[in-house]
Protein backbone atom coordinates (compact mmCIF):
# COMPACT_ATOMS: atom_id res chain seq x y z
CA UNK A 1 0.00 0.00 0.00
CA UNK A 2 1.29 3.47 -0.83
CA UNK A 3 1.92 5.76 2.08
CA UNK A 4 -0.61 8.56 2.18
CA UNK A 5 0.80 11.82 3.46
CA UNK A 6 -1.63 14.66 3.59
CA UNK A 7 -0.15 17.87 2.23
CA UNK A 8 -1.69 19.72 5.11
CA UNK A 9 -0.16 21.71 7.94
CA UNK A 10 -1.68 23.44 10.92
CA UNK A 11 -0.41 26.41 12.82
CA UNK A 12 -1.52 28.01 16.07
CA UNK A 13 -2.15 26.08 19.24
CA UNK A 14 -2.14 27.63 22.70
CA UNK A 15 -2.42 26.48 26.29
CA UNK A 16 -2.70 28.31 29.57
CA UNK A 17 -2.05 26.23 32.65
CA UNK A 18 -3.79 27.88 35.55
CA UNK A 19 -3.97 26.48 39.06
CA UNK A 20 -7.76 26.44 38.49
CA UNK A 21 -7.66 24.54 35.22
CA UNK A 22 -6.28 24.18 31.74
CA UNK A 23 -7.35 26.37 28.80
CA UNK A 24 -6.68 25.04 25.30
CA UNK A 25 -7.10 27.13 22.16
CA UNK A 26 -6.44 27.07 18.44
CA UNK A 27 -7.34 28.78 15.19
CA UNK A 28 -9.09 26.79 12.43
CA UNK A 29 -6.83 27.18 9.40
CA UNK A 30 -5.14 24.27 7.73
CA UNK A 31 -2.88 24.99 4.77
CA UNK A 32 -3.33 22.32 2.13
CA UNK A 33 -1.41 21.84 -1.10
CA UNK A 34 -3.78 20.82 -3.90
CA UNK A 35 -1.92 19.40 -6.93
CA UNK A 36 -3.09 19.81 -10.51
CA UNK A 37 -4.45 16.66 -12.25
CA UNK A 38 -1.08 16.04 -13.92
CA UNK A 39 0.72 16.49 -10.61
CA UNK A 40 3.17 18.91 -12.17
CA UNK A 41 2.10 21.94 -10.14
CA UNK A 42 -0.63 23.00 -7.76
CA UNK A 43 -1.53 25.59 -5.21
CA UNK A 44 -1.78 26.18 -1.46
CA UNK A 45 -5.28 26.48 -0.08
CA UNK A 46 -5.92 27.99 3.33
CA UNK A 47 -8.96 26.09 4.61
CA UNK A 48 -10.54 27.84 7.57
CA UNK A 49 -12.69 25.23 9.30
CA UNK A 50 -10.37 22.54 10.57
CA UNK A 51 -10.73 21.37 14.17
CA UNK A 52 -7.59 21.43 16.30
CA UNK A 53 -8.99 21.21 19.83
CA UNK A 54 -10.67 17.97 20.89
CA UNK A 55 -12.33 16.55 23.93
CA UNK A 56 -10.86 13.14 24.77
CA UNK A 57 -13.86 10.85 25.06
CA UNK A 58 -17.25 12.09 26.10
CA UNK A 59 -17.69 13.73 29.48
CA UNK A 60 -14.07 13.12 30.41
CA UNK A 61 -11.61 15.50 32.00
CA UNK A 62 -8.93 15.57 29.31
CA UNK A 63 -8.55 17.72 26.21
CA UNK A 64 -5.96 17.99 23.50
CA UNK A 65 -4.78 20.42 20.83
CA UNK A 66 -2.25 19.94 18.05
CA UNK A 67 -0.09 21.59 15.41
CA UNK A 68 2.13 20.41 12.58
CA UNK A 69 0.80 17.54 10.46
CA UNK A 70 -2.87 17.73 9.48
CA UNK A 71 -3.26 13.96 10.01
CA UNK A 72 -1.14 10.89 10.72
CA UNK A 73 -0.88 9.54 7.19
CA UNK A 74 -4.41 8.47 6.34
CA UNK A 75 -5.51 8.50 9.98
CA UNK A 76 -7.25 11.70 11.09
CA UNK A 77 -6.47 13.26 14.43
CA UNK A 78 -10.16 12.89 15.29
CA UNK A 79 -10.05 9.11 14.82
CA UNK A 80 -6.71 8.76 16.58
CA UNK A 81 -8.06 10.64 19.61
CA UNK A 82 -11.34 8.68 19.58
CA UNK A 83 -9.43 5.37 19.57
CA UNK A 84 -7.24 6.58 22.41
CA UNK A 85 -10.35 7.63 24.36
CA UNK A 86 -11.77 4.12 23.87
CA UNK A 87 -8.56 2.62 25.22
CA UNK A 88 -8.59 4.68 28.42
CA UNK A 89 -12.20 3.75 29.00
CA UNK A 90 -11.00 0.14 29.18
CA UNK A 91 -7.96 1.00 31.28
CA UNK A 92 -8.42 4.30 33.16
CA UNK A 93 -5.40 6.53 33.72
CA UNK A 94 -4.26 7.42 37.24
CA UNK A 95 -2.72 10.79 36.44
CA UNK A 96 -2.56 13.27 33.56
CA UNK A 97 1.11 12.36 33.17
CA UNK A 98 0.18 8.71 32.69
CA UNK A 99 -2.52 9.69 30.17
CA UNK A 100 0.03 11.77 28.23
CA UNK A 101 2.51 8.87 28.13
CA UNK A 102 -0.25 6.51 26.94
CA UNK A 103 -1.32 8.96 24.24
CA UNK A 104 2.28 9.48 23.08
CA UNK A 105 2.66 5.68 22.75
CA UNK A 106 -0.63 5.38 20.82
CA UNK A 107 0.40 8.19 18.48
CA UNK A 108 3.90 6.79 18.01
CA UNK A 109 2.55 3.38 16.99
CA UNK A 110 0.46 4.96 14.22
CA UNK A 111 3.15 7.48 13.19
CA UNK A 112 5.88 4.81 12.82
CA UNK A 113 3.58 2.40 10.97
CA UNK A 114 1.64 4.71 8.68
CA UNK A 115 4.60 6.91 7.77
CA UNK A 116 7.12 4.11 7.55
CA UNK A 117 8.31 4.92 4.02
CA UNK A 118 8.99 8.67 4.43
CA UNK A 119 10.52 8.07 7.87
CA UNK A 120 12.86 5.47 6.39
CA UNK A 121 13.81 7.86 3.59
CA UNK A 122 14.48 10.66 6.08
CA UNK A 123 16.71 8.38 8.18
CA UNK A 124 18.55 7.16 5.11
CA UNK A 125 19.32 10.73 4.08
CA UNK A 126 20.25 11.70 7.62
CA UNK A 127 22.71 8.83 7.89
CA UNK A 128 24.65 10.03 4.84
CA UNK A 129 28.02 11.63 5.62
CA UNK A 130 28.17 15.39 5.01
CA UNK A 131 30.69 14.80 2.21
CA UNK A 132 28.34 12.46 0.32
CA UNK A 133 24.94 14.13 0.63
CA UNK A 134 23.98 16.27 -2.38
CA UNK A 135 22.29 19.65 -2.20
CA UNK A 136 19.11 18.13 -3.57
CA UNK A 137 19.14 15.39 -0.94
CA UNK A 138 19.71 17.95 1.80
CA UNK A 139 16.70 19.84 0.55
CA UNK A 140 14.62 16.65 0.52
CA UNK A 141 15.72 15.82 4.07
CA UNK A 142 14.79 19.32 5.21
CA UNK A 143 11.35 18.96 3.63
CA UNK A 144 10.69 15.63 5.37
CA UNK A 145 11.91 17.04 8.65
CA UNK A 146 9.43 19.89 8.41
CA UNK A 147 6.52 17.81 7.12
CA UNK A 148 6.91 15.04 9.69
CA UNK A 149 7.28 17.31 12.75
CA UNK A 150 4.71 18.76 15.09
CA UNK A 151 3.15 18.18 18.43
CA UNK A 152 0.25 17.86 20.83
CA UNK A 153 -0.66 19.53 24.08
CA UNK A 154 -2.71 17.27 26.32
CA UNK A 155 -4.21 18.73 29.49
CA UNK A 156 -6.85 18.29 32.15
CA UNK A 157 -7.09 16.64 35.53
CA UNK A 158 -7.44 13.17 36.96
CA UNK A 159 -10.14 12.21 39.41
CA UNK A 160 -7.49 11.06 41.92
CA UNK A 161 -6.20 14.53 42.85
CA UNK A 162 -8.00 17.02 40.49
CA UNK A 163 -4.70 18.82 39.91
CA UNK A 164 -4.85 20.67 36.58
CA UNK A 165 -1.86 19.71 34.44
CA UNK A 166 -0.76 19.90 30.86
CA UNK A 167 1.91 18.10 28.83
CA UNK A 168 3.64 18.89 25.57
CA UNK A 169 4.29 15.97 23.22
CA UNK A 170 6.66 16.83 20.36
CA UNK A 171 7.32 14.44 17.48
CA UNK A 172 10.11 14.60 14.92
CA UNK A 173 11.30 12.12 12.29
CA UNK A 174 14.68 11.72 13.99
CA UNK A 175 13.13 10.21 17.14
CA UNK A 176 13.61 6.48 17.54
CA UNK A 177 11.02 5.92 20.26
CA UNK A 178 7.74 7.47 21.41
CA UNK A 179 8.17 11.13 22.41
CA UNK A 180 8.44 11.80 26.12
CA UNK A 181 5.70 14.19 27.33
CA UNK A 182 7.07 17.30 29.03
CA UNK A 183 5.08 18.99 31.82
CA UNK A 184 4.11 22.64 31.33
CA UNK A 185 4.53 25.12 34.18
CA UNK A 186 1.47 26.21 36.13
CA UNK A 187 0.78 29.92 35.80
CA UNK A 188 2.30 30.19 32.32
CA UNK A 189 1.03 30.42 28.77
CA UNK A 190 2.32 28.38 25.85
CA UNK A 191 2.07 28.98 22.16
CA UNK A 192 3.05 26.80 19.20
CA UNK A 193 3.24 27.80 15.55
CA UNK A 194 3.59 31.30 14.13
CA UNK A 195 5.26 32.91 17.17
CA UNK A 196 6.44 36.06 15.34
CA UNK A 197 3.43 38.22 16.16
CA UNK A 198 3.24 37.35 19.84
CA UNK A 199 7.00 37.89 20.12
CA UNK A 200 6.63 41.34 18.61
CA UNK A 201 3.73 42.28 20.88
CA UNK A 202 5.30 41.11 24.13
CA UNK A 203 9.00 41.58 23.48
CA UNK A 204 9.10 44.19 20.72
CA UNK A 205 11.12 41.89 18.46
CA UNK A 206 10.68 38.55 16.70
CA UNK A 207 13.30 35.94 15.88
CA UNK A 208 13.69 37.17 12.28
CA UNK A 209 14.37 40.74 13.40
CA UNK A 210 16.58 39.52 16.24
CA UNK A 211 18.80 37.40 14.01
CA UNK A 212 18.88 40.19 11.40
CA UNK A 213 20.36 42.56 13.98
CA UNK A 214 22.93 39.95 14.98
CA UNK A 215 23.81 39.27 11.34
CA UNK A 216 24.09 42.97 10.43
CA UNK A 217 27.57 43.23 11.90
CA UNK A 218 26.55 46.45 13.62
CA UNK A 219 25.89 44.82 16.98
CA UNK A 220 29.11 44.45 18.91
CA UNK A 221 27.72 42.86 22.08
CA UNK A 222 26.83 39.21 22.69
CA UNK A 223 23.56 37.53 21.68
CA UNK A 224 22.53 37.43 25.32
CA UNK A 225 23.26 41.15 25.81
CA UNK A 226 20.99 42.01 22.88
CA UNK A 227 18.25 39.79 24.29
CA UNK A 228 18.66 41.41 27.73
CA UNK A 229 18.20 44.82 26.12
CA UNK A 230 14.86 43.83 24.61
CA UNK A 231 13.75 41.91 27.69
CA UNK A 232 14.26 44.93 29.93
CA UNK A 233 11.52 46.70 27.93
CA UNK A 234 9.17 43.76 27.43
CA UNK A 235 5.55 43.66 28.53
CA UNK A 236 5.78 41.76 31.81
CA UNK A 237 3.21 39.03 32.31
CA UNK A 238 1.11 38.28 35.39
CA UNK A 239 1.59 34.88 37.00
CA UNK A 240 -1.29 32.40 37.23
CA UNK A 241 -4.27 34.33 35.88
CA UNK A 242 -7.80 33.61 37.14
CA UNK A 243 -9.54 31.16 34.81
CA UNK A 244 -11.72 33.62 32.87
CA UNK A 245 -8.74 35.93 32.33
CA UNK A 246 -6.72 32.95 31.12
CA UNK A 247 -9.47 32.28 28.56
CA UNK A 248 -9.29 35.95 27.50
CA UNK A 249 -5.49 35.67 27.22
CA UNK A 250 -5.64 32.61 24.97
CA UNK A 251 -8.32 34.20 22.78
CA UNK A 252 -6.37 37.47 22.58
CA UNK A 253 -3.07 36.00 21.41
CA UNK A 254 -4.73 33.81 18.79
CA UNK A 255 -6.94 36.68 17.58
CA UNK A 256 -4.01 39.14 17.47
CA UNK A 257 -1.89 36.67 15.49
CA UNK A 258 -4.68 35.96 12.98
CA UNK A 259 -5.39 39.64 12.37
CA UNK A 260 -1.73 40.70 12.21
CA UNK A 261 -1.09 38.00 9.60
CA UNK A 262 -4.21 39.00 7.67
CA UNK A 263 -3.37 42.71 7.57
CA UNK A 264 0.28 42.35 6.63
CA UNK A 265 2.50 41.13 3.81
CA UNK A 266 2.49 37.63 5.33
CA UNK A 267 0.24 34.88 3.99
CA UNK A 268 -2.93 34.09 5.95
CA UNK A 269 -1.71 30.76 7.30
CA UNK A 270 -3.74 31.35 10.49
CA UNK A 271 -7.43 32.18 10.66
CA UNK A 272 -10.99 30.92 10.79
CA UNK A 273 -12.99 30.64 14.00
CA UNK A 274 -11.04 30.51 17.26
CA UNK A 275 -11.87 27.46 19.35
CA UNK A 276 -11.31 27.41 23.09
CA UNK A 277 -11.88 24.64 25.62
CA UNK A 278 -11.60 24.55 29.35
CA UNK A 279 -10.98 21.75 31.81
CA UNK A 280 -11.36 23.29 35.26
CA UNK A 281 -10.32 21.25 38.27
CA UNK A 282 -13.95 20.90 39.43
CA UNK A 283 -15.63 19.98 36.12
CA UNK A 284 -15.12 17.83 33.05
CA UNK A 285 -14.13 19.18 29.62
CA UNK A 286 -16.22 22.19 28.52
CA UNK A 287 -16.26 24.22 25.33
CA UNK A 288 -15.88 27.99 25.67
CA UNK A 289 -16.00 28.60 21.90
CA UNK A 290 -16.76 25.83 19.44
CA UNK A 291 -17.82 26.09 15.81
CA UNK A 292 -20.88 24.25 14.61
CA UNK A 293 -20.78 21.78 11.73
CA UNK A 294 -22.57 24.23 9.39
CA UNK A 295 -19.97 26.94 9.97
CA UNK A 296 -18.39 26.57 6.50
CA UNK A 297 -21.77 26.91 4.72
CA UNK A 298 -21.47 30.59 3.92
Amino acid at each position, binding site marked *: MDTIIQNESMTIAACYVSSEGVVLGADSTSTMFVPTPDGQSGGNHHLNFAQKVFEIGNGGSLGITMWGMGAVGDLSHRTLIARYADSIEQKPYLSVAEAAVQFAATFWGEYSRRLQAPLARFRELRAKPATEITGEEQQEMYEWQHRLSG*GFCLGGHSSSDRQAESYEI*IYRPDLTAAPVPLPLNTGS*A*YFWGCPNI*IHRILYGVDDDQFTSILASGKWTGTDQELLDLF*MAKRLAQPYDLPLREAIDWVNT*IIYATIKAMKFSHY*FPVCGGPIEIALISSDRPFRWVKHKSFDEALL
Partner: protein
Amino acid sequence: MSQPTVQIAMEAKLDILTIQDRVGQTPPPKWILRMQEQYVKTGTISTQDLRQLLGDPTKRVEIGPKPSLAAFTGH
Protein backbone atom coordinates in the same frame (compact mmCIF):
# COMPACT_ATOMS: atom_id res chain seq x y z
CA MET B 1 -0.94 72.86 28.43
CA SER B 2 2.15 74.93 29.22
CA GLN B 3 4.49 75.96 26.40
CA PRO B 4 7.30 73.44 27.22
CA THR B 5 4.73 70.60 27.46
CA VAL B 6 3.32 71.50 24.05
CA GLN B 7 6.82 71.60 22.60
CA ILE B 8 7.69 68.15 24.06
CA ALA B 9 4.43 66.74 22.67
CA MET B 10 5.12 68.23 19.23
CA GLU B 11 8.67 66.87 19.19
CA ALA B 12 7.41 63.44 20.21
CA LYS B 13 4.83 63.56 17.41
CA LEU B 14 7.54 64.55 14.93
CA ASP B 15 9.70 61.64 16.14
CA ILE B 16 6.83 59.19 15.62
CA LEU B 17 6.15 60.61 12.16
CA THR B 18 9.84 60.24 11.27
CA ILE B 19 9.80 56.62 12.45
CA GLN B 20 6.58 55.94 10.52
CA ASP B 21 8.11 57.53 7.45
CA ARG B 22 11.27 55.44 7.72
CA VAL B 23 9.30 52.24 8.33
CA GLY B 24 7.13 53.07 5.31
CA GLN B 25 10.21 53.42 3.11
CA THR B 26 11.80 50.17 4.28
CA PRO B 27 11.11 47.31 1.87
CA PRO B 28 10.01 43.91 3.22
CA PRO B 29 12.86 41.46 3.89
CA LYS B 30 14.25 39.56 0.89
CA TRP B 31 12.72 36.24 1.98
CA ILE B 32 9.24 37.78 2.02
CA LEU B 33 9.71 39.14 -1.51
CA ARG B 34 11.03 35.74 -2.63
CA MET B 35 8.06 34.00 -1.00
CA GLN B 36 5.57 36.36 -2.68
CA GLU B 37 7.26 35.96 -6.05
CA GLN B 38 7.21 32.17 -5.82
CA TYR B 39 3.58 32.21 -4.71
CA VAL B 40 2.57 34.32 -7.72
CA LYS B 41 4.48 32.01 -10.07
CA THR B 42 3.58 28.60 -8.62
CA GLY B 43 0.77 29.05 -6.10
CA THR B 44 2.95 27.48 -3.42
CA ILE B 45 5.11 28.55 -0.51
CA SER B 46 8.43 26.75 -0.17
CA THR B 47 9.11 24.65 2.93
CA GLN B 48 11.91 26.98 4.02
CA ASP B 49 9.71 30.06 3.75
CA LEU B 50 6.83 28.34 5.51
CA ARG B 51 9.23 27.34 8.26
CA GLN B 52 10.49 30.91 8.58
CA LEU B 53 6.92 32.19 8.65
CA LEU B 54 5.59 29.70 11.17
CA GLY B 55 8.67 28.92 13.20
CA ASP B 56 9.97 25.50 14.17
CA PRO B 57 7.02 23.17 14.92
CA THR B 58 9.12 21.39 17.53
CA LYS B 59 9.74 24.57 19.54
CA ARG B 60 7.30 26.06 21.99
CA VAL B 61 7.01 29.70 23.03
CA GLU B 62 6.62 29.97 26.78
CA ILE B 63 5.19 33.27 27.88
CA GLY B 64 6.78 33.52 31.26
CA PRO B 65 8.94 35.83 33.31
CA LYS B 66 12.22 35.21 31.45
CA PRO B 67 12.28 34.09 27.82
CA SER B 68 15.32 32.16 26.68
CA LEU B 69 17.70 33.11 23.89
CA ALA B 70 16.73 29.91 22.06
CA ALA B 71 13.26 31.34 21.38
CA PHE B 72 14.87 34.03 19.22
CA THR B 73 17.91 32.41 17.72
CA GLY B 74 16.71 28.80 17.41
CA HIS B 75 19.80 27.46 19.18
